[in-house]
């Protein structure tokens, strides 16, 4: 009781003053000293059950939807999946041959041979609700070998990259986040550029391009592999708008990410071998998937 009265004795303005000082200190510590990284990692580990709880409604609804499927739908799905499998298998036959041919050509040209990279599937635990940020939390961390800056891909294209790694989970930034940029190349004519996030999930932007640049609506932008973070040749976005003159003397290109960033549930973590282990030998090859040009195989 006595303590409570004492507590009441502090005037609110003074109390607010202390809170303000503390939070300003925190902001400064976080932005300039990066002290919070370790704190955040430990808090994240501690709080990971909370994410699961917060995520449970969406898990529950999708589980219910699974249960509610009729027999007819299942049969239909099965048929469709088998069809896709057949198609992909057919493609794969062609692919094996092409890969060999490509390797031979590359050997002839004297350029390094691209080796397969290791991938692993991770599940999304939570999505940032903060409208200023486009972040996700995934359920694999340091123990699975996740590292900072690691590329994340989905079934259609690039999703983002890892920013913080905890023992059992990690945070990733999406390509559409305002603070993310990715080096890309127009697949039609190899024009290079940098696609930055806008904060909108369905929009990337390329500015500072010359006004006469040959980019058309509908062009596919793929990763250029420059910068060394993302592997080369993965689809990123498709151009939806091209405005050569927006008053700045530069062209502005708007593109929509190939991957529907609002609806991802699973992501593929990727360990590119191109840059970090050119010969592909020093990465463990046991019980992993290999991804080959977007078609993944379990070996």
């Amino acid at each position: 009781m006595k303590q409570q009265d004492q507590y009441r004795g502090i005037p609110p303005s003074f109390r607010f003053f202390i809170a303000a000082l503390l939070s300003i200190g925190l902001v400064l510590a976080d932005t300039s000293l990066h002290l919070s990284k370790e704190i955040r990692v430990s808090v994240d580990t501690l709080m990971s059950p909370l994410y699961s709880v917060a995520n449970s409604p969406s898990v529950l609804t999708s589980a219910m939807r699974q249960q509610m499927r009729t027999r007819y739908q299942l049969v239909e799905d099965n048929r469709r999946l088998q069809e896709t499998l057949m198609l992909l298998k057919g493609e794969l036959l062609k692919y094996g041959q092409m890969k060999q041919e490509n390797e031979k050509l590359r050997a002839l040209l004297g350029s390094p041979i691209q080796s397969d990279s290791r991938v692993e599937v991770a599940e999304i635990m939570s999505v940032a609700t903060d409208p200023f940020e486009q972040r996700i939390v995934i359920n694999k961390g340091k123990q699975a070998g996740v590292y900072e800056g690691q590329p994340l891909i989905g079934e259609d294209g690039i999703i983002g990259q890892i920013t913080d790694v905890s023992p059992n989970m990690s945070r990733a930034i999406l390509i559409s986040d305002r603070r993310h940029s990715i080096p890309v190349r127009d697949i039609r004519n190899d024009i290079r550029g940098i696609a930055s996030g806008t904060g909108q999930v369905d929009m990337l932007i390329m500015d500072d391009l010359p006004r006469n640049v040959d980019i058309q609506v509908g062009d596919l932008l793929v990763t250029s592999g420059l910068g060394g973070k993302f592997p080369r040749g993965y689809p990123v976005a498709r151009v939806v708008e091209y405005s050569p003159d927006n008053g700045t003397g530069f062209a502005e290109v708007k593109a929509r990410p190939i991957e529907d960033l609002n609806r991802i549930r699973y992501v593929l973590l990727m360990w590119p071998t191109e840059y970090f282990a050119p010969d592909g030998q020093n990465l463990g090859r046991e019980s992993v998937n290999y991804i080959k040009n977007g078609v993944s195989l379990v070996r």
Partner: protein
Amino acid sequence: MVYGSLFLALILNLIAPPPVLQHFYPNILLLTVMFWTVKIPRMVNIGHGFMAGLMLDLLVGSTLGIKAFAFSLMVFMLTSAFSKLETYSLLQQSVSIAIISFVGQIVIFWLEHLFGLAFIDYHTILSCVSDMVMWPVLWVSLGFLMRFRHVRNTNNQL
């Protein structure tokens, strides 16, 4: 009960809203802290606002301290400018809460902008409208819960 409701509100705040409602998602944690500040100012006040904001900062992964500052500012506004909020009619209460939330959103927006994180998206400020709509619901439901528990708690605690 106070901490239980705050914890529940924190989880509710973390649940991702459908994309359509993204900008109109009410700040349930903020409203809950405000509710307790109005009802039991001796127990819950600026310190709790600060902690709630800090938790949200940590869990959402934004710059530490921004929401902590904004939350304590909003609770401070509530205790200093609207200390008689409990006596207002429910409509007046909602409007006052919306005003506080509006100022708070602007402060968050401004701070995020100051530290180079934000882009211009004024839609987020609109969440104060949904706060206004949400407040009466919270007021009635938490008030009911409180009365329910109050009978046992009157003599020994308050």
